[in-house]
């Protein structure tokens, strides 16, 4: 139990510190890396409370796809070095009060939600749900995803296929006049095709028929 608590505090500490670092670090690329660290430590927390499927999905979707996409955008837009510093520059200080107000509102909303959840008497507590301890989350999800919801699962695949076809149709252009490298002809080229050794007689020169 002690080890559990120690790990919980380590991961929580890393999560909070990296979340703060995302907003305050000057280099945008560093921000993205701190974001990835934040995601990883939160997924570790999920795994610790037994939600291993949620943790792994968090890793795959947020770290594997979203954060890498962020990284691509940051690198392509070339905004690695932020010119103005948060909290000090005059332009950005205008936004801080608005940001603070929104944070306070979200904070109070969370308090209301959690308070209602905690103190509403007729709400069903999570422990009262019958849960099979033997079977893992992933198994339980798979059991209904591939039986009762198989058609929805397959149709979601079709939706993704249509999205892919659409993206290709709307953006792919066959350019004419592009010179492509042909590895096969490059590799299969022999010395005899390209170079010819000629004995040049003096005072005659060489005549090429090209």
């Amino acid at each position, binding site marked *: 139990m002690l080890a559990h608590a120690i790990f919980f505090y380590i991961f929580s500490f890393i999560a909070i510190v990296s979340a703060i670092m995302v907003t305050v670090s000057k280099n945008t690329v560093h921000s993205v890396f701190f974001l990835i660290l934040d995601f990883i430590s939160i997924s570790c927390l999920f795994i610790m409370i037994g939600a291993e499927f949620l943790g792994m999905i968090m890793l795959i979707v947020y770290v594997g796809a979203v954060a890498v996409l962020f990284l691509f955008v940051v690198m392509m837009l070339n905004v690695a070095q932020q010119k103005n510093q948060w909290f000090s520059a005059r332009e950005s200080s205008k936004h801080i009060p608005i940001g603070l107000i929104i944070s306070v509102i979200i904070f109070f909303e969370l308090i209301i939600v959690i308070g209602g959840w905690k103190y509403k008497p007729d709400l069903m507590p999570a422990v009262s749900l019958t849960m099979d301890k033997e079977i893992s989350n992933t198994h339980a999800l798979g059991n209904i995803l591939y039986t009762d*919801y*198989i058609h929805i699962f397959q149709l979601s695949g079709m*939706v993704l296929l*249509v*999205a892919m076809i*659409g993206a*290709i149709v709307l953006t792919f252009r066959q350019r004419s006049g592009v010179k492509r490298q042909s590895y096969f002809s490059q590799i299969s080229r022999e010395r005899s095709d390209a170079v010819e050794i000629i004995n040049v007689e003096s005072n005659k020169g060489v005549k090429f028929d090209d």
Partner: protein
Amino acid sequence: MINLNFISAEIFISVSIMFLLILGVFKKNSSSLIHNLSIGLLLITGILILNNYPDKSLTFFANSYIIDTLSSLMKIFTVIGGALVLSISKKYLKISNIFLIEYPILILCSILGMMVMISSNDLIVFYIGLELQSLALYVLASFNRDQLKSSESGLKYFVLSALSSGLLLYGCSLIYGFSESTNFNIIGNALKSTHYGLTFGIVFILVGLAFKISAVPFHMWAPDVYEGSPTSVTLFFATVPKVAALTVFIRFLYVPFINMIDQWQPIIIFLSIASMIFGAIAAIGQNNLKRLVAYSSIGHIGYTLAGLSVATNEGIQASIIYISIYMVMNLGLFSCLFMMKRNDQFFETIEDLSGLSKNHPILSLSFLVILFSLAGIPPLAGFFAKFYIFKSVIEQSMYFLAIVGLLSTVIAAFYYLKIIKVIYFDKEKEKYDTDHSTWLKVSLAISTLLILLYFIFPSKIVEIVSSVTII
């Protein structure tokens, strides 16, 4: 183990999408082959649905997918409509330089989405089907990406449609919160109280659906999207998705919301009246035929909604007959549009039609028949469609709705007759090309004959549709 026979059409169409995609990738210059193959595959899908036509309603996948007479009939309309749209738009696509392998595949994808929508008996299945069909439609709207108007219409459609999807989802979550289930039957049993949250949920869902069928006041995307998209895509927009969206409308109103009829009936009546009046008045000033079709489709959707508002089986059947006849009329109208071509350039304004009767008497005769039918002049099919609607409305003594509908028919007749006047009495212009594909000619002939000869066999269609009973 569930009986997969009844969903074999959906499985078949999904497999054929992937097969066509792989064929298109590995075989060079296979656009024409894939186009023809997808028409054939759609027809086979239609045969599969017909083969497994159910005599009672069956549910699959933990009661979330339903096959009944309504869904099978509407699926057949969707599939046949899709096949016809593909077959008459081949030449247009070639000339507009958008004859790519992805075009028929995207149409197939959106038809798959519509089939799922039509058969859904669950909020999640419904939403997935809706997104599948609209995602394919966004891409189709901006398919001619080198043209500014096409890209603009795709973007407009995407942004507005995403907004309406958001409203729809909000409504779904409210309904789910109050009924504790996403299943339509369970929702129908749970929704008995008149809680404000439920009313809000119903309103949000109806707004989202009204947007998808472009009923007033959620119609503003339709004219721009119809005008900007390639004409073949406009034809698709104007026919097939309307059938699917109407079915979803019927399903929502009469399965989960059946006990809340006092809440939704005024909303549907308002949507219907507003669409009929707006569709009639706003089309008068239009010069572009595609925009005109958009406004006229808004008006026609008003009539189908009038049939839905009466809450009887007769009303629903009248709406289904209306939408199927409307589909035939639109196919004929767009076949005429595809024939207005000179030197590989298509014309789409009313002035281009002037004096058409001198050069192309047969084409103008078809135009005349289709436009008279759209205006609802007896004894053409359009008249019967409106007749069934008004009959069911008057049987429930909703006289105000019927009077407004009749008046707006009279107003709408003005702009249809104006086109006929331009065709027959204005100065003639240069001749159009006559080298049309056989499919185009056949489709125009069939749709014109269907409209013209409907009065000989009206009981046949009424008989087929009368098997659809929801309440």
